[in-house]
């Protein structure tokens, strides 16, 4: 049996700049994400959430420590191998500008696969399209879709290649609460029904409550975590954090 750990960070440090202007964005973060688990990352602004995600996703190199995606250690991977890894093992959902304006929704969803020269498994494709509820909109261009629809297209794109893990940095940050709820429901469902591993950065306790586990970052380090969180529990922890910080 393969390891149930999808992503693992071991004592990850990330320093930006040098000398006077040096910023320590991550200071010794260790984190294991189990397969099929939905993890939310929370913390005050500037606490290092995005940095941690970028490091775990291979978009940025760590200063010290090690990150593994599945069985692959990211340290020392060349650009080509790293790009392949992103293409095949990692899904991304950014806060906005997730889609290529020249491609239709369907083509955007297929993009990582077509870059790899593969076609989606038809049954899986149908299942994902149904789950995001965009069947009528597949032929539309991004500028013909609402913000929420665009984010759902991005979710489908992340999901279709069946990556080891999906990273989502504030995927609902630009959406109204109803559209946000739709996206969150979809993420939740893909964990529950398809066993997808997801890491999501968010500022919203309600969003975080959709996760199985919430990790709290402050000043570049993990301070605490909650399992099976509720919105109130998350809010309380946040308040405590702020007090500690203040």
């Amino acid at each position, binding site marked *: 049996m393969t390891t149930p750990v999808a992503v693992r960070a071991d004592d990850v440090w990330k320093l930006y700049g040098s000398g006077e202007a040096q910023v320590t964005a991550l200071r010794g973060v260790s984190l294991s994400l189990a397969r099929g688990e939905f993890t939310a990352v929370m913390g005050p602004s500037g606490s290092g959430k995005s940095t941690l995600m970028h490091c775990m996703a291979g978009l940025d190199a760590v200063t010290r420590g090690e990150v593994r995606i599945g069985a692959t250690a990211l340290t020392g991977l060349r650009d*080509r191998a790293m*790009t392949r890894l*992103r*293409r*095949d093992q990692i899904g991304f959902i950014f806060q906005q500008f997730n889609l290529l*304006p*020249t491609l239709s929704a369907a083509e955007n969803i297929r*993009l990582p696969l077509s870059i790899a020269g593969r076609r989606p498994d038809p049954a899986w494709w149908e299942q994902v399209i149904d789950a995001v509820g965009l069947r009528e909109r597949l032929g539309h261009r991004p*500028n013909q879709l609402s913000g929420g629809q665009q984010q759902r297209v991005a979710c489908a794109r992340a999901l279709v290649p069946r990556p080891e893990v999906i990273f989502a940095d504030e995927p609902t940050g630009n959406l109204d609460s109803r559209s946000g709820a739709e996206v969150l429901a979809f993420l939740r469902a893909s964990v529950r029904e398809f066993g997808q591993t997801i890491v999501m950065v968010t500022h919203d306790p309600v969003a975080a409550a959709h996760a199985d586990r919430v990790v709290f970052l402050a000043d570049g380090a993990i301070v605490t975590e909650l399992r099976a969180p509720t919105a109130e529990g998350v809010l309380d922890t946040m308040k405590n954090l702020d007090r500690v910080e203040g």
Partner: protein
Amino acid sequence: MLHATWKSLLSRKLRLLLSGLAIVLGVTFVSGAFVLTDTLGRAFDDLYALQYRSVDVQVRPAPEGGSTEDDEEIRTGVPAGLVDRVRAVPGVAAATGIVSVDGARVIGTDGKVVTTTGSSRLGSTWTGENDLVRLRAGRAPRTGDEVVLNAALLEAAGVRLGDRVGILTVQPRRTFTVVGVQEYTGGRDSLGGNLEVSFHSSVASRLMLGRDGQFSAVGVTPAAGVPTAAVQAGIRSALGAGYRVQTGAELRAAARTDAQSDLAVVNSVLLGFAAVSLLVGVVLILNTFAILVAQRTRELALLRALGGSRRQTLASVLAEALVIGVTAAAVGLGTGIGVGALLAWLFSTQGGRTVALAGIGVPLMAPVAAFGVGVLVSLVAAVVPALRAARIPVIAAMRESATPDRPLTTLNRAGIAAGTLGAALLTAGVVGDGTAWLLGAGAVTGFVGVVLLTPAMARPVAGSIGRLFAGTAAGRLGRLNAGRNPRRTANTATALMVGIALITGMNTVLASTTASLRDRIADQITADLLIAGDASLADDPPAFDPAVLQRVRALGGVSAAAGTYRGDAAVDGERAAVAVVTDVPAHARMYSMRAVAGALTDLGPNRVAVRDDTARRLSLRPGSTVRVRLAYGGTRSMTVAAVYTGGDAVGEWLLPISEVPNLAVPQLANVDLTVAGDAAVADVRRQVEALLADSPEITVTDREGYLRRQTGQYDLIATLIQILLGLAVLIAVLGVVNTLALSVLERTRELGLVRAVGLTRGQTMWMVTVEAVLIAVFGALLGVAVGTGLGAAVVRALHRSGITTFALPWPRIGLCLALGAVIGVVAAILPAARAARTDVLRAISYE
């Protein structure tokens, strides 16, 4: 606001450099032309001042028609007796008969005739040393077998003092001993690159003018105290209208005019290149500004929101264009002076020419034209984008920053209208009788139509070519990118289209001309072998010993042979080319020539034949009389015996064999022969070649070789086309680089996104390359289509001049298309590398 303009200029240095380069090129050609003319003009002035320094008055045969001074004269001499008549004119101290005529061809030690490019090969009488000519070594010729060569010729021929050299003149080859070497004032090897053989006075006339007792001119020295003009007037009234009497100053001015008209060709080529560059420059600058204004929509709207006026927006864009124009003009002026000086230097040293350059001349017109053109072109190009910028509403500051293209409907409508009108005019011209103005107007209107419709064609055409690349995701993305900003793609492609269209048009005309010639040769010429000189070598085609004809006839395999003599004449006061054929029936058979009135066999003393079109033009029919003057024999009345058609090899006038002695060159220009049925053409050809050992300029060809020789004169045009092609390619690369660089910058976020979801660096580069290739190939395709249309129109207009077959230059068309692809690949290198280096994190992080 001006400060903001300046900052935005600095931050876009590279981009502006790229779009300004076409203007730099254009200005370079314009100012280069001025500098070349001025610099060489002075050099030639100095040369002619030297050459005519010691000439006071000169008497030469009058040009035919007698109307204007610089009418081309029939090559002939003045009788020796004229010297005494001139000497008898009051005020004349001395009169000297001289021979100095182009056409003394020395055979070098390598067995080849020494050639020049542009300058003359003079054959002269040795008239002793004077203040222009001096002996550098050896002595003057004492007999007709001795010659003096100028130092430049001695070196070019590779001979030494005392050597024997073969020289071709209007007489068959003769061998002479070199007894002296001559130089000119100031120790010059040559005057302006001219090669000169000085013969003994006993033979010069026969060798250079075709008969004894002639001079090409009489040099006059006025008596002390008598003004030149008075002597000139005196000689004029003494001699009458048959002679031209000119002062040294007039000769000098005439020589200068000749040199200027040589230069005029170079100048018009340079100005043509300038026009192409500037036209393309306008397109490139327009494109750059259009993209910049679109990208800066929000910024410009923000400035408006902060209180900037429309006028200020307009001024800021125009100011930016002005800076580009002035900078490009300054750089172009600098390079233009360099190019002009370089060309002048090449011109003055090429082909052994040694015209001393009297410093580089930069006439005032050079900077005036440079800055005028630079500023005008850049402002014209920026007007439309500037107006668009001024029309940006303040509300745009709040909108998405994307830069969607405006709808194309107006453009399309205008384009369709112009295109339809152009097509209609062209059709009318082509189907009708090829009226030139219809074709011209049609071509121009059609061209405008195509340019206007280019944006509408961009997406479908780039899309269909793009199918070739649709196999990979990167290729598909590149294809979509090529079609996403139709105006941008269209403008970039237009820059290439202009050049390729010109090239294809010219190639089409060339191909059609060659094909027409080939058809005519196949239809009309039955001669198996054609003996002739290379016409492109000199003004007068080289001729050869008439004895060759007898020997050719005597060869075993020859069934018929006819020789042709050629010469200049004045017929009823009009200059005309005439021919004499030794065996008219044989020649008529070999060239499908036949009489349409009278009979060709009816030719005889003072009985001539005329080609049908000339007969029509001059209203001549058998029995009409014309007044004919040849080089010698005076003006005589002759009767038209026949009117012929199909006399391509003869020309307008066919004279009887009795006129040969009256021609300036009493030697054969051509011999055509047919081979007897049982003999092999190659065998006969070898035997004929052996007979021509004394005439190294003359070659034997079959019909195919004849075609090649005829089309050889287009080589220069072909070379110009290649230069133009190089230029077009260079500018097109700049244009594509420019557009791609702007697009890559604009799409940073997208590039980050595709890199994040798995596009490798290589795939990213391929994506950009595909876009570039599609744009460039689209441009090349358009160019080929437009050029073929233009070529067809020109070919149609030239139908009456004998271009009757339309042929497409397929290999060259293929080359242009392939070149389009190469241009795309080359132009993509930098932008693609830049795209591949996109920092994913920076691209996806949003404020």
